């Protein structure tokens, strides 16, 4: 059967980096002019409008260090990664998040860090972006529904942010909370999950150098459907652990209960490490469909990051702690 093949893009068609940077500067300039033009009219924007977008655009212009941790595999076509998504806040179909992306209001955005930390704070996102050092990381992403992608994320290690706020000795877990905006997010009007979406990691998982907070992908600002403006990326766990659109990070002593654990504790465990040997009760986890590819691949233990993370789970029965 005929199947669509992605056209190879000729080198001549690729916009030179310098040129697209110029364009970006031009667009930014235009946006600033536009904003300025609004000022006397009385239609005042809040003074922090577009602030984090501006801060991020500045950072994306610089040369970011790149680390390929996707086993040298080619990234999934961007078009696929932005139109095949699970983001139930924007709808349950894979195509919904792209269609309803504009319903996620990300401006302005702030991030709260509280709980068991010496210095809790609520930070404007632009301040987070400015103080952290961003880098590109190419990671495999494996969904619990047995499909996978390779994504070039832009972000910074979660550990960098946590250390700044000095976790106390009682901090054993890190709890994440996503946006709650049922007026705009159509999915939050339904009771598929108990909103807002919540996830959690053990502190050593959260401090692991592979664990990222991402603010962009494919060299650009994070698209709304992929969890703008800031999301978690934990590449050795099923995708649902990598919570999108984070508004609050709380360090706790007790183990938190995530939204999926609450919905179905038999099927969604706290750890949710990618493991081809432990099936989801209803679906097989042995294989996966790499988006954009024909056929199936064998799923790798810890999604191929066993060397880096297996030590975190030494001595644990992974059948029990799924």
């Amino acid at each position, binding site marked *: 059967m005929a*199947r*669509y093949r992605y056209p190879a893009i000729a080198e001549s068609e690729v916009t030179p980096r310098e040129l697209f940077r110029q364009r970006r500067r031009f667009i930014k300039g235009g946006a600033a002019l536009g904003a300025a033009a609004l000022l006397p009219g009385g239609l005042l924007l809040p003074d922090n409008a577009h602030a984090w977008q501006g801060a991020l655009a500045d950072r994306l212009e610089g040369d970011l260090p790149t680390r390929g941790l996707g086993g040298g595999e080619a990234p999934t076509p961007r078009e*696929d990664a932005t*139109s*095949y998504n699970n983001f*139930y806040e924007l709808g*349950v179909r*894979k*195509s919904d998040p792209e269609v309803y992306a504009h319903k996620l209001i990300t401006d302005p955005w702030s991030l709260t860090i509280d709980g068991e930390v010496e210095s809790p704070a609520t930070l404007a996102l632009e301040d987070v972006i400015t103080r952290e050092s961003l880098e590109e990381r190419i990671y495999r992403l494996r969904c619990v*529904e047995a*499909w996978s992608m390779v994504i070039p994320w832009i972000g910074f290690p979660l550990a960098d942010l946590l250390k700044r706020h000095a976790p106390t000795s009682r901090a054993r877990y890190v709890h994440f909370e996503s946006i709650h905006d049922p007026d705009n997010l159509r999915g939050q009007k*339904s009771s*598929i*999950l108990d909103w807002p979406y919540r996830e959690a990691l053990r502190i050593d998982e959260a401090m692991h150098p592979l664990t990222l907070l991402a603010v962009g992908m494919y060299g650009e600002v994070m698209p709304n459907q992929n969890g703008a403006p800031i999301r978690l990326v934990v590449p050795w766990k099923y995708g649902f652990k990598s919570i999108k659109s984070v508004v609050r990070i709380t360090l706790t002593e007790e183990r938190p209960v995530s939204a999926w654990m609450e*919905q179905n504790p038999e099927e969604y465990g706290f750890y949710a490490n990618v493991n081809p040997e432990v*099936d989801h009760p*209803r*679906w*097989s986890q*042995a*294989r996966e*469909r790499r*988006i*954009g590819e*024909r*056929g*199936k691949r064998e799923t790798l233990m810890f999604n191929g990051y066993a060397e880096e993370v297996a030590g975190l789970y030494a001595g644990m029965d992974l059948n029990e702690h799924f």
Partner: protein
Amino acid sequence: MSIAKGPVRIFRLLVLAAGLLPALWLALRWGQDDLGVVPEEAVVHLTGRIGLALLLATIAFSPAFRLTGWVGIMIARRPMGLWAFAWLCAHALSWMGLEQYWAWEWIWEDMQDLPYVRYGAAGLILLVPLALTSFRRARQAMGERAWHWLHRLVYVSAALGATHLWTLTRADYRLPTLVVAVLATLVLFRLVDAARHRR
């Protein structure tokens, strides 16, 4: 030609359209690369949904006949049932080809490990004797009584189909709920109707 033949023919054409048009629509969307990022997955899901919808429609024919008394409905029931069977076969084949890529060891493994695969397979296998005995000669050879008893398996098959859909659903239970509600209504009608006739 009697007057009744006109509407019957139109109704049979409608049944033909119900069986054939979804195939055209699916082929067209496949051809235009309009089945989303993973067209293989879309084909497996859509053939299953269409098959289950046609199966429920077939089951609805008998109550519709009871309510209207129009014989055309019963004439068109067999082709409708065969369309449902054909779509569900297409669903199973597309699962084997587009989901499992004809890897028999994977197909066997999933049959053993995954309840939803077993429910679906059982539901489809139950329909095989019904399809084989749907023709007039088989029906005459069996006798009306035995034939009716055998063909009540369609309810078991549809229930397995509904269970299959329910079991593989992750979070949004609107469609499986609708399927269960429709099937329950049809079964209830059948039971009430049978009780009324016994009296």
